[in-house]
């Protein structure tokens, strides 16, 4: 882990045993001078209800502290959530998170669709009709899944374009680019296998064409299309095969690789956009210093190019 600067943690989320005692006048202690005579002006006693309320306010923090004392996750979480981002970070940098959000929408709506869907060639179409026409909110959930898939494909391509045009795939982030390409392929696999599931005329013939395109690959193509169909013709198990790939095989791989993708993003940081230049000294250097810089170093000994330009996060 790079040594992240530790931001100040709000007192509210620090468990009581670790909390520093507050200074007078700050955080909970009464402000102003201490009463001159405790006998004439005794401190107000809190009622039982107020005490209970105070304890209630502490309860979630205590629970959080209890978990964190055992998990020791707050260091990692603050490092992740309060990490520095480079100058020039803009809205284009949200495309990855947007893609992740689209994936989460797909995952959640997919789980609920699976409760009503029947992956059988004779019943699939009827079960989709049932979802759309009779299940409460079924059309909405199905619609979110159907249109959300297009949204996810569009967003993943925009995210890819952002990474490419900002040069964010370069050292040391090549591995994250490779993982991203695998995620793109898996997303396309999801789109392809999901298209068949409604089992109407369009999805049936589109899948026939898609499988046959797979078959045109030399040497392995014919076997690949046989594998996808589970036989030489579109058969009884083709639909269940697509269903299993769509909701078990690929989502598992997607989730694992998204985890690796995010880990590398946090570990390596993000890049500055290409139009953000290196920080330059505000005052122009005297000519003598510029001459001294001819050997590749500034007068103070730091190399002139590359280092410390603030462009790497």
């Amino acid at each position, binding site marked *: 882990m790079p040594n992240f600067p530790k931001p100040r943690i709000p007192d509210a989320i620090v468990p009581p045993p670790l909390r520093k005692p507050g200074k007078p006048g700050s955080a909970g202690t009464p402000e102003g001078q201490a009463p001159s005579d405790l006998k004439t002006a005794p401190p107000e006693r809190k009622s039982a209800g107020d005490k209970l309320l105070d304890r209630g306010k502490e309860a979630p923090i205590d629970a959080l502290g209890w978990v964190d004392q055992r998990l020791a996750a707050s260091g990692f979480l603050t490092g992740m959530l309060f990490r520095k981002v480079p100058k020039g970070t803009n809205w284009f940098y949200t495309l990855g998170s947007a893609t992740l959000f689209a994936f989460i929408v797909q995952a959640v709506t997919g789980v609920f669709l699976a409760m009503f869907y029947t992956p059988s060639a004779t019943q699939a179409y009827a079960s989709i009709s049932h979802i759309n026409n009779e299940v409460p909110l079924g059309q909405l959930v199905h619609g979110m899944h159907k249109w959300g898939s297009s949204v996810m494909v569009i967003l993943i391509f925009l995210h890819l374009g952002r990474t490419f045009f900002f040069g964010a795939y370069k050292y040391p982030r090549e591995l994250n680019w490779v993982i991203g390409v695998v995620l793109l392929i898996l997303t396309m696999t999801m789109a392809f296998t999901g298209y068949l599931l409604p089992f109407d005329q369009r999805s*049936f013939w589109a899948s026939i064409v898609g499988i046959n395109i797979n078959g045109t690959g030399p040497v392995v193509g014919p076997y690949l299309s046989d594998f996808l169909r589970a036989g030489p013709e579109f058969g009884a*198990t083709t639909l269940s095969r697509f269903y299993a790939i769509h909701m078990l095989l690929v989502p598992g791989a997607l989730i694992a690789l998204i985890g690796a993708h995010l880990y590398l993003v946090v570990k390596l940081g993000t890049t500055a956009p290409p139009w953000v230049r290196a920080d330059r000294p505000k005052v122009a250097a005297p000519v003598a210093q510029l001459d001294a810089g001819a050997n590749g170093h500034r007068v103070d000994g730091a190399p002139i190019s590359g280092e410390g330009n603030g462009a790497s996060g």
Partner: protein
Amino acid sequence: MADDANKVNGAEEAPVRERVKPDPPGYFEGESMTRRHVFTVASQALGGLAAAGIVLPAVGFAVAPIFHRGKERWEGVGPVSDFVEDTYRQVVFTETEGIGDAGKTTAYVRKSSEDLGEEPGKFVAVSNRCAHLGCPVRFVEAAGNFICPCHGGVYDFQGKRIGGPPVRPLDQFQTRVRNGQVEVGPRYSVTNQMEPVRARDPGEFTGGIWEYLYPPRPSTFPPP
């Protein structure tokens, strides 16, 4: 280090019998592996064995259909008198059982014609599956051609490609006559010279070197 330790323990003065020093360290005379190494290798081998025991059947289960050929299926499509030489009659029959309408396919059937150089007294069943990407073609009576709605593939009366993106003639089905009924059977593909070969998927060339680039699949039936 070891020598120092011996000195401290006074082992140097004790009459020890000559012993071969382990070389490399950790190995004793006659040993080719340390105990630790034996257990490392053994536990990794056992783990690999267990993993293979799970993965191989699962993968085999998933790819088995590639090597499985179903039962040969014949279906009657009409009496002999229904079919003539100079035009096709459209028939629908089941190619894959158990999946309802999705398992049905369409063929265009006619009597064989000596004018086209075919063996007389037989029946020709042309599949409506386009040889480009598998869309359903239809026979257009006025033109005497098969035309595909998807990407404009055109085939002549015999099913040979005459235009558009298809890569070979239309597939055919084996035919036979039983009890006065014309029956259609397994699918097969043809080359541009109309020689029968094992069924290929749409988009795959047939004949010549293509027979190796798009090898026949074990899940299909031998051509007639």
